[in-house]
């Protein structure tokens, strides 16, 4: 873990709400190295976005974060605001789900790119402009020079997301966090954007975190996957190992519940019954146990900790993990 570019250690995020304390992130450990891609998968409310905000130190004012966020040898939780500001946008970049809300609607594409570049890099206007054009071309925007004068509303959703990626990549970040980067986009555009992110990640030897609700998105495009449920990481493994042998019943159920193209129409889907627990009313035992078909008495009274499976990189938090398949 010490060699990782980013390591999150024992992160806890508490949010005060009128209904009581909401533990959005519950003792999470994660790490990602340079040139690697980590996928964080979970449903809405599982804490995946709060975790990314914690890494970026962009949590809501009232939120309380404990634990450490080590990035390139520094603990971000202890960094003064000014230093953080220099880091964000420069070494730490982020692409959000909705490009319309992350781009400023009253500034041209060019202004937004050049502003970011000049904020962090020692370039004059002409150089920054040139670099902006190169970036727009790199993210696959046709006629990049003309685009500089356009406003976000003049572009389609896919093009806007490409611009947001160009802004994120503008200062050669070491780590790129992509929070549901393709959820707002159509499927044919989604594939193009995911390819673009993968290509730039490899070319720049960046570390990347892809946050998504879609197991399909992480399967072919990440090195490691962390599955989150009710604020905790419940399973973590190298991507091939995870898909070959899921140990945590939630991961398995999530995959099974996805409609698949190779299944005949009108086949009932193996749905997960019930819904995630109320995060302001934490359960004593395993958070997934009320919905889990393997649940036993112990699951309701004791919280399973992340522990190692056959291989040291494969961790899961379950008392009754899915047994290794015969012959697997």
């Amino acid at each position: 873990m010490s060699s990782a570019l980013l390591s999150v250690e024992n992160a806890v995020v508490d949010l005060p709400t009128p209904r009581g304390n909401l533990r959005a992130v519950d003792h999470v450990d994660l790490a990602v190295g340079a040139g690697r891609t980590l996928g964080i998968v979970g449903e809405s409310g599982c804490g995946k976005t709060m975790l990314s905000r914690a890494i970026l130190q962009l949590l809501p004012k009232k939120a309380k974060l404990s634990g450490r966020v080590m990035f390139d040898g520094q603990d971000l939780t202890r960094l003064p605001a000014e230093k953080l500001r220099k880091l964000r946008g420069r070494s730490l970049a982020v692409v959000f789900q909705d490009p319309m809300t992350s781009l400023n609607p009253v500034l041209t594409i060019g202004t937004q790119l050049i502003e970011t570049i000049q904020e962090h890099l020692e370039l004059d206007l002409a150089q920054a402009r040139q670099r902006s054009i190169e970036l727009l071309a790199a993210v696959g925007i046709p006629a990049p020079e003309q685009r500089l004068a356009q406003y976000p509303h003049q572009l389609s959703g896919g093009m806007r997301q490409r611009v947001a990626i160009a802004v994120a990549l503008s200062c050669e970040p070491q780590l790129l966090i992509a929070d549901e980067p393709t959820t707002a986009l159509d499927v044919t555009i989604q594939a193009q954007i995911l390819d673009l992110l993968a290509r730039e990640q490899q070319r720049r030897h960046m570390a990347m975190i892809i946050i998504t609700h879609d197991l399909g998105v992480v399967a072919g495009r990440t090195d490691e996957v962390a599955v989150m449920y009710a604020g905790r990481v419940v399973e973590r493994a190298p991507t091939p190992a995870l898909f070959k042998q899921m140990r945590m019943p939630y991961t398995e159920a999530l995959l099974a519940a996805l409609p698949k193209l190779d299944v005949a129409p009108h086949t009932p889907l193996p749905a997960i019954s019930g819904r995630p627990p109320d995060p302001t009313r934490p359960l004593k035992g395993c958070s997934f146990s009320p919905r889990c078909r393997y649940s036993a008495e112990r699951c309701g009274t004791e919280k399973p900790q992340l522990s190692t499976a056959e291989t040291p990189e494969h961790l899961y938090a379950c008392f009754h993990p899915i047994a290794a398949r015969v012959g697997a």
Partner: protein
Amino acid sequence: MMLQAAPNPLMKVENLVVEYSVGGKTIHAVSDVSLEIARGETLGLVGESGCGKSTLGRAVLQLRQAVSGKVLFDGHDLTTLKGEALRQMRRRVQLIFQDPIASLNPRRRIGDIVAEPLVIAGVKDPEERKRRVTEVLSAVGLDPALVSGRLPHEFSGGQCQRICIARSLVLNPEFVICDEPVSALDVSIRAQILNLLEEMKARYGLTLLFIAHDLAVVKAVSDRVAVMYLGRLCEVGPSEQLFARPAHPYTALLIEAIPVPDPDVRPTQSVPVGEPPSPIAPPSGCRFRTRCPRADARCASEVPELRVVAPGQFAACHHPLV
């Protein structure tokens, strides 16, 4: 008519054209679309945002006026009906929307929300209304005694969608249009709602028009699938057949673009097919030609008609894949 699904379809859309006027420009939302839906069938309608699939659904219900074309429901042309006659017909056709929370009035109690269609339809007896509401709420898996007095904000998205489904069923409709009914829901909840729609279809003998952008979701519930692109139908066919052997290059592109949850299936390098053109100025000829790897001069000059490519399967393409 070549797209005949059954001798006596419940819903028949003929040469439907819907256009919007925006800032002096015309958006060609639905251009000359013909479809038939047999009794008891689920027709899936897929396409990307802006392809006109929701507009088509709304035009079928007469929530959007068509420029030309017919919508024949059980033999009655809905486009010519007005006032009371249309209202009577609408009782038999219902709609479920994408955002379940936004489609419930936040100030009204669930029992009243679900009973509202009965009130509008003139069911005067409160006992009768209560009986119907109790029945449909139980059918969608909610406890009527527990939920009737509550407000929408007390429910999750999945539960709100159950309430919307109950409301759409309370008048005993024959035909239900589901417009992206699960795309706002989480994966684990999505499966529950899809299963529920299938159950309700069997229980109440419904015919469904299921509109969605997600091919796998559409396949899970549909007998036949229609693929739409920029206001026109590209391909129509039986679900299994269409996904196994797509004839239209656009259908093939859509299928290929779905991320598969299997790391051994390396994502095929996406073809740099660009983005859909604007429906304000759709391309001449085949509207998909600007993104199509097979396009040639003929595609620019001649609009391809839907033609039979396999039994029950139709594609509007000059160079079909099968």
